[in-house]
């Protein structure tokens, strides 16, 4: 497989995968947000999780000038159960701000389940249970005091199948803002225009904003869903196989868009397409049968995986 290393290198060109500073994890310098139900005292004690072993100690003198991307989401020893079936086993992982992290692995290995834990969508499924902790900017998102509505404003999601609502394009994009109390027509107009522009759809739809969103093509629908997600100003965007229902050209548009978006957002993307993972992501996590086998820089995972399973999967020996 040919990997374009220019794309893979994160902007700060770090050769050792040195991006996580356990000492700095709590002080993510993200903008203060609505998601602040907990005071600092309430926060659980931090721990160094074993997966940190993947990353060298940042205090090592060889890399003194390293700039670190702060951690946005931290997953600590998460187990997840559908009834009595355990779908995730002791997952620990850090997701870094302004980086795209790809989740890969064979069908049924728990990628979607893992993704849906970050905006608590799994709670909607009856008879499920989660153990462990997921911290967003250091706050436990499963803490009883956390308001799931503001969490989901902070952590947006784009689904595998484009799911525009059967309303007009305008009403789709404005849906979230209206839900969150914005009524002013001018403000809404601005939000609609700027998010459609960000999603690269404005040019195609600016004259037909009142047309039904379901009349758009699949690729346009998916970009509309991305715009709809951006309109509530999330910090994290979860994408579950966002291009699997699209043709290669439409998929290319979305990938380009992800490249743009990761300058401002934390992106987590599930994909079955290895090339896509290699193209769009900075970090990659490989899941297998509910376990996180390996995480690391995308370039490292794809060129020099540490685990045999990872190598077998990437080289297409199973999956």
């Amino acid at each position: 497989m040919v990997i374009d290393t220019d794309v893979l290198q994160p902007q700060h060109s770090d050769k050792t995968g040195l991006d996580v500073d356990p000492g700095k994890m709590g002080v993510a310098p993200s903008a203060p947000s609505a998601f602040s139900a907990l005071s600092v005292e309430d926060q659980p004690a931090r721990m160094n999780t074993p997966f940190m072993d993947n990353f060298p100690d940042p205090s090592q003198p060889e890399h003194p000038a390293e700039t670190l991307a702060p951690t946005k989401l931290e997953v600590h020893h998460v187990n997840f159960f559908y009834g009595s079936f355990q779908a995730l086993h002791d997952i620990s992982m850090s997701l870094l701000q302004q980086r795209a992290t790809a989740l890969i692995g064979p069908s049924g290995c728990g990628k979607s389940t893992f993704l849906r834990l970050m905006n608590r969508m799994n709670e909607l499924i009856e008879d499920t249970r989660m153990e462990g902790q997921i911290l967003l900017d250091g706050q436990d998102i499963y803490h009883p005091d956390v308001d799931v509505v503001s969490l989901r404003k902070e952590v947006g999601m784009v689904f595998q199948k484009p799911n525009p609502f059967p309303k007009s394009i305008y009403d789709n994009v404005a849906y979230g803002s209206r839900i969150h109390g914005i009524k002013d027509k001018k403000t809404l107009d601005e939000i609609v225009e700027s998010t459609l522009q960000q999603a690269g759809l404005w040019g195609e739809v600016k004259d037909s904003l009142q047309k039904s969103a379901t009349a758009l093509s699949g690729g346009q629908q998916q970009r509309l869903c991305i715009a709809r997600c951006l309109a509530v100003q999330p910090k994290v965007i979860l994408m579950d196989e966002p291009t699997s229902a699209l043709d290669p050209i439409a998929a290319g548009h979305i990938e380009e868009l992800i490249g743009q978006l990761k300058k401002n957002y934390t992106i987590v993307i599930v994909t079955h397409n290895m090339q896509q993972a290699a193209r769009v992501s900075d970090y990659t996590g490989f899941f297998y049968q509910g376990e996180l086998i390996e995480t690391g820089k995308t370039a490292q995972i794809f060129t020099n995986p540490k685990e045999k399973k990872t190598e077998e999967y990437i080289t297409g020996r199973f999956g």
Partner: protein
Amino acid sequence: MSTTATLPVQTTSLTQGGLARRNAKLAEMLTYGLMRLVTYLMVFAVGYIVFDIVANGLPAINWEFVSQFPRRSGAQGGILPAIVGTISLVTLAIGVALPLGVASAVYLNEYAKQGRFTDMLRLAIVTLAGVPSIVFGLFGLALFVLVLGFGASILAGGLTLACMILPTIIVASEESLKTIPKSFREGSLALGATRWQTIFKNVLPYAMPGILTGTVLSIGRAAGETAPILLTVAAFFLPVLPGSVFDQVMALPYHLYVLATQHPEAAAVRPMQYGTALLLLLIVLGMSLLAIVFRNYFRGKYRW
């Protein structure tokens, strides 16, 4: 070359088994023929009844008939009180049953934890839908007329009819809610909408067409049933308009029953019977059309 060699073989295989296929075709034609026959019979029966009522009822209907009070126990004059009675009963029944029914369906489909309890609830609702209307009449008599002390009144009758059509509306609404894709709900929740916002803004509007179809069916039933109103509201002969919901009132189906079977000059009032029947049909048609207009509005607005 192999391609040219296989071509004739394929052609023969297409014509083989001709007999079996001819039999299958015959069976298919027979079945379709039967189905078509049954459908035509149904249409013919309905068409004949409607034709009979329209042909005989139309001459009886005039301005006096719809705007006057009945005289000589309905042998002369009009049927204004019965028209007013039926319209107010149906309006009250739908007005009560529609919100309650939709709320129940929303609870059952969107909120309740699915399991034995909800299955039992659904079974109870479906069973209720099949309960004879006279039983609802007795229930209404006991609860609304006697226990709650509404007396024989529009209120008691309307609520009784509401109970009767409630199961139909719940079932139709739930079926309609079930057809709304899960992705609409998830998409909305993922944007930070609450469950309630999601249902109100992104589920119910799309379910409206199905809900209104159930309502159309219920209008006909509420307008036409005689037994429940007989026990709870309908007056044999009351040539005044009701002053409030606590008054008794005449109603078209019961009036029709009286004219047809209880009237001393049943044969002489035959045109009045036909006129009453036709008006009842027209009222049901009119109210259903109203619901259908709403339904089409929602259908056109939200397409997926």
